[in-house]
């Protein structure tokens, strides 16, 4: 991956300097252009640093959109999003991209990899300069990440020809290579069979130890990998009338 420039160097120390790198949303409203009613309103939402959270709920309520908001892919129609000391909603497009690359790791349902690149090249693509500067150093770092996930044998293969389960595990290895503070995963197991889904969650939770992890999924198999107190129904959250039972463990929401 190419150098981020000065912006990232400035943003990252701010984030790491926080005692608690938490995510806080307040009065956030999101609506689609064609829709009259908002997709969801979140009066207040906080996710504590280091917590592992599963947001579940039926499709179409905005779980994925929330992940995109958290990572600054786009801005809400109103409200504020803070990550650590950084007001994400105050950043412009370029700064949000730098911020995202420096601090977030994202896993999508599919298409986490560039099909025509090898697995190793896909991982090298996201190794930031703060982790390894030269091409050779990035290669070595990528190889270590693959080895840690037990995927060394796939390094030379094209991403497009390996199974969906392996692709998702490689997506986790890819995230680990970037060493982000916050990991966001959007339905990471929706296309996988049971053993595949289990392996992906094991990899994800193993890597995310000590990092903030937010998973959105309506896959019931995801629940067994999270403590009950870390599982939240997004449809309730989005109504704005949800009261946290375990705010200290990870997530809190309350009426403004």
């Amino acid at each position, binding site marked *: *991956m*190419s150098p981020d420039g000065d912006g990232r160097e400035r943003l990252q120390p701010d984030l790491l300097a926080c005692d608690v790198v938490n995510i806080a949303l307040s009065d956030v409203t999101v609506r*689609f*252009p064609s829709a009259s009613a908002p997709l969801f309103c979140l009066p207040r939402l906080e996710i504590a640093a280091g917590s592992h959270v599963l947001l579940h709920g039926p499709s179409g309520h905005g779980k*994925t*959109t929330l992940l*995109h908001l958290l*990572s600054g*892919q*786009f801005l809400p129609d109103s409200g504020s999003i803070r990550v650590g000391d950084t007001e994400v909603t105050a950043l412009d*497009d*370029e700064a949000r*991209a*730098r*911020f*995202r*690359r*420096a601090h*977030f*790791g*994202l896993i*999508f*349902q*599919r*298409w*986490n990899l*560039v099909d*025509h*690149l090898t697995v190793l*090249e896909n991982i*090298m*693509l*996201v190794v930031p300069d703060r982790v390894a500067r030269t*091409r050779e150093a*990035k290669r070595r770092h990528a190889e270590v990440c693959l080895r840690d996930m037990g995927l060394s044998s796939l390094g030379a293969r*094209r991403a497009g020809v390996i199974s969906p389960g392996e692709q998702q595990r490689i997506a986790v290895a890819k995230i680990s290579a*970037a060493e982000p503070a916050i990991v966001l995963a*959007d*339905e990471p197991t*929706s296309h996988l069979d049971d053993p595949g889904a289990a392996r992906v969650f094991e990899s994800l939770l193993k890597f995310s130890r000590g990092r903030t992890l937010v998973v959105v999924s309506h896959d019931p198999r995801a629940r067994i990998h999270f403590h009950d107190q870390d599982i939240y129904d997004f449809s309730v959250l989005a109504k704005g009338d949800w009261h946290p039972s375990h705010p200290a463990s990870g997530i809190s929401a309350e009426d403004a």
Partner: protein
Amino acid sequence: MSILRLAWLNLARHRAATALAVLALGLTVACAGMLLRTARLAESRFATLAHAGDALIAAKGGATDALLGALNTEGPYPRFIPLRLFATLVNETWYTAGSRPHARSVVPLVYSGKLVPRGVTAGDKTRRAGASGDSYRVAGTIAAFFEMPPPSPPLAFAAGGWTEVEAGVVIGAAVAHREGLRPGDTVAVAHWTADSMPSPAQSGLAPRPFVVSGILAPTGTAWDRLVFTNLVQAQSLIEEALPVAGQKTVWDSYVLHYVIVHAAPDVAAVPDVPDASRVTGRLDSLGVLIDQQTVTQIVPVAETLESLRRLTATGRQVAALMAVLSAMLALITLAALMLGRFEGLARQMTMLEATGWRKAELRRLLFWEGLMLGGAAAAVGGALDALAFPLVRTALGTALPDPGLVSSTVWTSAPVWAAAVVVTVCASQGSSWLVFRGRAQERLRNLG
């Protein structure tokens, strides 16, 4: 991984698609380049055409061929006309007492040999002396050639001068420059009386040595590419060559190819009309005489040149139209190519953007892809152009100037290559607009 390397991998890992795209674009570039070179060559004919005389007398046939043969020293070996006709005109011009002559000046021209380039021996088959394009034509003429009255521009000597002594030649400026000749140098002249003239090695007719007596100052016309000798020497060369070439004429070696005529003003007939009309009047009456009573024809220079301009202008317009069509084809090919790539690119771009790549970086990625595609297409197009243009030129024959007289390098097509690269890069940036035009939420749906 650098952006440049990712761009390279995006192309290299889709080898078949990239190769087809480069080939399609390369073919378009080659076609546009060859059209450009053809148009430039057609134009160059007028740039080098010498200005001499009001009319030419030549063997009956195409007026345009006569004009180009005499004043642009190109085309196939011309048919002979009798030297006697020139003598008659000289008599009428210079020695007619009491009556009005048709011409104020008549100058003969006869091609009789070709200069053997330095370093080429008679047996050298790779650069056959006497073959078209390998050497410069040697024309026999008289001293009056260098003192032709207006409208012919004056000719000046850069060094030395004209000589009627045996085996002397005056060298055109381009020939002297190319061959590094100075007065006093000796040059070899091979016999040339037919396009199918056997080489000196085959005929046993050794090239004859000539001494350079003068170098013409540059004129920027076909005269710069010509070597001049006197009529006696020219006829001697022809006399030796005719039996070898299997040719026979009813006039033996007393032949010419052209007579350059400067018409006398028709003062008595229409004293008040402008000069051009008066000249035309005399040419008309001379034309009647020549056309009806001799085996030759009179070719009015200005009229024929205008006809040639009209003809080639049509050709140039067609070439320009074809070039525009080729360019449009290139653009459509390019648009189809880039849009085809878009489907594959959109997901990759969205994924990279979602993981923190800035739009400027993604545009740079597409820029490099476009540059590499355009560069490869330009290289392939240039190579095809270089290989195919000689064949195209041969196929077009006398529609274009002789390759030996006006060369055309593949670099003439360089503007087309540059345009191909620019268009490809612009098209790649167009696809980035397609990628980024929607809202981020919409784009992210592609990732499931």
